[in-house]
């Protein structure tokens, strides 16, 4: 997604000014994506040019310009919600590609690359799990969900490295 879709989503229920949009964008994304106000206004201008948002007249006393969705903006937003990202062909994931290239240099090299990346990922997972455990009793929902996503992705990468190792060593010894 881009900033554009995020702003359309935030404008769905009521008009907002650029500063409000910046703050809500950052809160909604669990602070993993920070924006400057200039970026927000540039995007709003493009959305206005494309007929997806319009300046609102609801709050004429306010010094800040308010923006609201147009009918075309609501249509654009609806199609974004329903669009499922295509996952074919597989994404050009750096870890995956590195291991694939490493295999070309021999099993031992590939296993060394897998070991190094697994250690680094396990350290990362340990840090992310510590962050989860250190959460306040009633954490912000977005922050918790972002932490969950980071933990689950690290676990998925580690699981994939285990599968790679099993494939490479699969025909070797049968120790218990």
């Amino acid at each position, binding site marked *: 997604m881009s900033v554009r879709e995020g702003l359309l989503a935030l404008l769905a229920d009521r008009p907002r000014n650029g500063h409000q949009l910046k703050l809500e964008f950052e809160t909604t994304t669990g602070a993993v994506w920070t924006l400057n106000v200039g970026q927000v206004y540039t995007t709003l201008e493009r959305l206005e040019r494309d007929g997806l948002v319009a300046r609102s007249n609801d709050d004429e006393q306010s010094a800040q310009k308010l923006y609201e969705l147009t009918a075309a903006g609501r249509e654009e937003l609806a199609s974004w919600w329903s669009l499922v990202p295509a996952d074919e062909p597989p994404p050009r994931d750096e870890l995956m590609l590195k291991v694939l290239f490493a295999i070309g240099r021999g099993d031992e090299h590939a296993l060394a690359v897998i070991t190094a990346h697994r*250690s680094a990922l396990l350290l990362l997972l340990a840090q992310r799990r510590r962050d989860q455990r250190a959460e306040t009793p009633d954490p912000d929902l977005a922050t918790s969900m972002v932490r969950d996503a980071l933990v689950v992705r*690290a676990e998925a990468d580690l699981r994939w490295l285990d599968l790679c190792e099993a494939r490479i060593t699969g025909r070797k010894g049968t*120790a*218990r």
Partner: protein
Amino acid sequence: MTPILEFDDVVKSFGSGLTEVRALRGVTLTIEEGEFVAVMGPSGCGKSTLLHLAGALESPSAGSVRVGGRELAGLGAAACSELRRNDVGYVFQRLNLIPSLTAIENVMLPLELSGGSHRVVRQQAIAALETVGLTQQLDRYPDDFSGGQQQRIAIARAIVGERRLLLADEPTGSLDTASGDEVIELLAALPKEHGTAVVLVTHEPRFASWADRFVFLRDGRIVDETIPVAGATR
């Protein structure tokens, strides 16, 4: 720090001749008192064998295994049993509680086998069960408890009498994720609060991530040891 478990160039083979399988191929490893170490690796890498040797359930084919400075090679069956009763606790994937004994009787069993007085042994069992967060319904049978609670009872039985080394072989294998997290949280607290060294064999990074140190085995050899402090790797 004082080493509680030492492996020095340990080799373990099963079978002989053409059917010989080398489960461990020269493992050197030191685990200190109060340390929580996760041992990881693919199926067949030798991690369960490592735990069996540490618990004197098997003997090494070559090399030295010491628990609390005591060489395990040459210990007779009686001395090995005594070591398992007094110094080393074991938690398995299968819960291994005796169904006809109550929770507290299961925990008392190792100390009663050592000949402790009933009153003292019961107090020690209650203390061990408190450590794992169980204070009620101790006279119920294992089947009356959830899987996670049964594993807590098994951990209490493994640490009762203040044993200094706890060996846990996939202790979350039969539990759901939430119960598994609770069990690992409990294991992680033992080194900090009681100075017990914990060696956890697991294939789950989620659970290993609680450890102070990760040891990776592949094909019977340690291929990496990692300490999760500021990206330090050794």
